[in-house]
Structure formats: C-alpha cells, structure tokens
C-alpha cells in the first residue's frame, strides 16, 4: 500500500449518500486519517442510501454513527468527527490540516463555501452533485479551474438541480461517492489526468462525459491565481471545535 495513502488526511464534508460510500472506500483502502463533518442526525429516510447508518443509529449524529461503522471496517484509520455545520472559520482551520477534501454536501451555498476555502487555503478537493439518475464530479486543485469557473452563476441558479427538490437515486449517489474516493486516491498517488475535468453521468441513457475545464480569467473565485501559477498551500494552524 502506498505510503502516500497511509499518511494522508482527508476531510469528508457530509455523511449522506455521497459521503458514506466515499468514507467506506477510503477506509478499506487504508487511508491514514479521516475527519468527518456533518451537523445532522440519522433519520429513517436516510437508511436506503446511507449505508454506514442502521436503524439502531436513528437519532445519533451521522458523524458518530459513521465513525463507529468505519472503525469496524478497518481499525487502522484514525477517525475524527465534527458534528457542527461547516463555516468559513472552521473550514479554513480544517482544510489547512488536510491533504484533500471531499465535498459530499447538498446545496449550493455549502458547495461554494468549500470551493472558496479550498482556493484560499490551497487545499485540493473533489466536488460532486447528484440528482435523479444523473451526477457530476470534478477535482479542483491549486492549479486548475474551480467550481465558479465551471458554473459562474451557480450561486444564483435557483434552478440548479438539487436532490432536495428532485429526489436522488441511491445507487447513483453510491457511484459518485465511490468515484470521489477514486479521484482522491488518484490525486494522492500523483495520478492527475482527471483533475480539472468535469465527469458527468446520465444513468437513463448510460452516457458519460469527461470535459476539460479551463481556468476562467473572469472567475470571481480564482481569477487572481490565473496566470500566476499554483495557488499557495498554507499548512499551519490547529483544528479545534
């Protein structure tokens, strides 16, 4: 097993349909440390697609439920939990301590927060979104396009398809959560042909798309970094809750 994997620290933001399969895959691969972030508790409606939680976990925090399940899968991985919502302040502290972040959240504002703090701290991360039978994912690094380059009006896109309104097919979330784990492992082992590329899937047509996304000179998120080389990676500070 690569020492880059066993030494790596990954933060997973959201322990739902994306975060559960991503966390399970990373633990089984021997990742060194996971920090799980989610303020929610386990509800009955979560169980069909959030496989780290069971009926016995109803009412428990998702992060503690997931941590217990992950410890049974592989005890070698160190697991930390944060059961509060992600904010600009706590995200900056956490991201500086991690090698990679997985955005397994639901909702535009949190996704843009993760994107912006990732850029500010120079921490690579993997965006993903799923709705119905469709999903998309992209790895953002200090020298690639970011989510705001890809969707300049994401923040204003009330019609942005969210599973909250449109529903989600569990296996599609499982597929994309597993893909996020794959992309994280690729990055950690210096295999980066997929970074900065948007991968989309439509289950009803069995169609995949893999698109190269350039840095936008007018991007509000990262234009300062465009043409100036990789954004700096700060690795200081301590996480406290």
């Amino acid at each position, binding site marked *: 097993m690569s020492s880059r994997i066993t030494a790596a620290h990954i933060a997973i933001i*959201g*322990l*739902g*349909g*994306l*975060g559960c399969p991503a966390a399970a895959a990373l633990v089984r691969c021997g990742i060194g440390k996971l920090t799980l972030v989610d303020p929610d508790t386990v509800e009955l*409606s979560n169980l*069909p*697609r*959030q496989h780290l939680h069971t009926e016995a976990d109803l009412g428990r925090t998702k992060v503690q439920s997931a941590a217990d399940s992950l410890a049974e899968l592989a005890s070698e991985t160190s697991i930390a939990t944060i059961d509060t919502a992600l904010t600009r302040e706590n995200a900056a502290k956490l991201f500086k301590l991690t090698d990679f972040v997985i*955005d*397994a*959240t*639901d*909702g*535009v504002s949190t*996704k843009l927060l993760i994107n912006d703090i990732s850029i500010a701290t120079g921490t690579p991360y993997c965006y*993903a*979104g*799923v*709705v*119905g*039978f*469709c*999903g*998309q994912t992209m790895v953002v690094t200090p020298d690639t396009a970011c989510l705001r380059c*890809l*969707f300049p*009006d*994401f923040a*204003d*896109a009330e*019609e*942005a*398809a*969210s*599973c*909250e*309104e*449109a*529903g*989600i*097919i*569990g296996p599609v*979330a499982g597929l*994309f959560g597993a893909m996020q784990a794959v992309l994280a492992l690729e990055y950690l082992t210096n295999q980066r042909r997929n970074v900065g590329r*948007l991968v*989309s899937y*439509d289950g*009803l*047509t069995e*169609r995949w*798309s*893999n*698109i*190269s*996304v*350039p840095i936008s000179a007018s991007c509000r998120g990262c234009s300062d970094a465009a043409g100036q080389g990789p954004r700096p990676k700060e690795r200081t500070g301590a996480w406290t809750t």
Partner: protein
Amino acid sequence: MKVQVLFFASLRELAGTHASQIVVEDGATVADLWGVLCARHPAVEPMSTSVSFAVNQEYTDRDHPLADGDEVALIPPVSGGCCAEADTDAC
C-alpha cells in the same frame, strides 16, 4: 449545418429528450444554438444563465463558433448529494 446536442441532468427533463440534431446557420455560435434550443424547448430558457457548454468534450464559452458535425453537451449545475427520498420521476 447540423450539430448534435446532448442534454444532461435537469435539462434533459426540461427539453423532454436526451439528444437532438439541430440545424443552425453557417457561422453560428454556441449562443446562437442556445437561442434555437430555447425557441424549440421553451422550458429550458430559465437555465440560460447557469448552463455550461462543451463542444466535442471541451468546455467552451458562448462565443465559440460551431462547425458541421459538432457534438454540443449542455451541462447544468447539480448540487444534490445527501438528502431526500428517491423520486424516480426526477432528472
């Protein structure tokens, strides 16, 4: 000239199809194509500010000139990831 249009995610639902061959004038741009699509599928028009475009698997802006035979993918942002009941009518 003819281009092949692929609709992803909510755009497929709004357009009522996953793919369509569209005839546009020579010299047409991606923006011109979007105008044709909005006229043919008015339900997609509210996505005008948020949709992204890829021509032959490369992200492009709206000024990009099209060529005969191009494949144009229309990709809306997707934000879901952790919640809600399954709805097989969605997407």
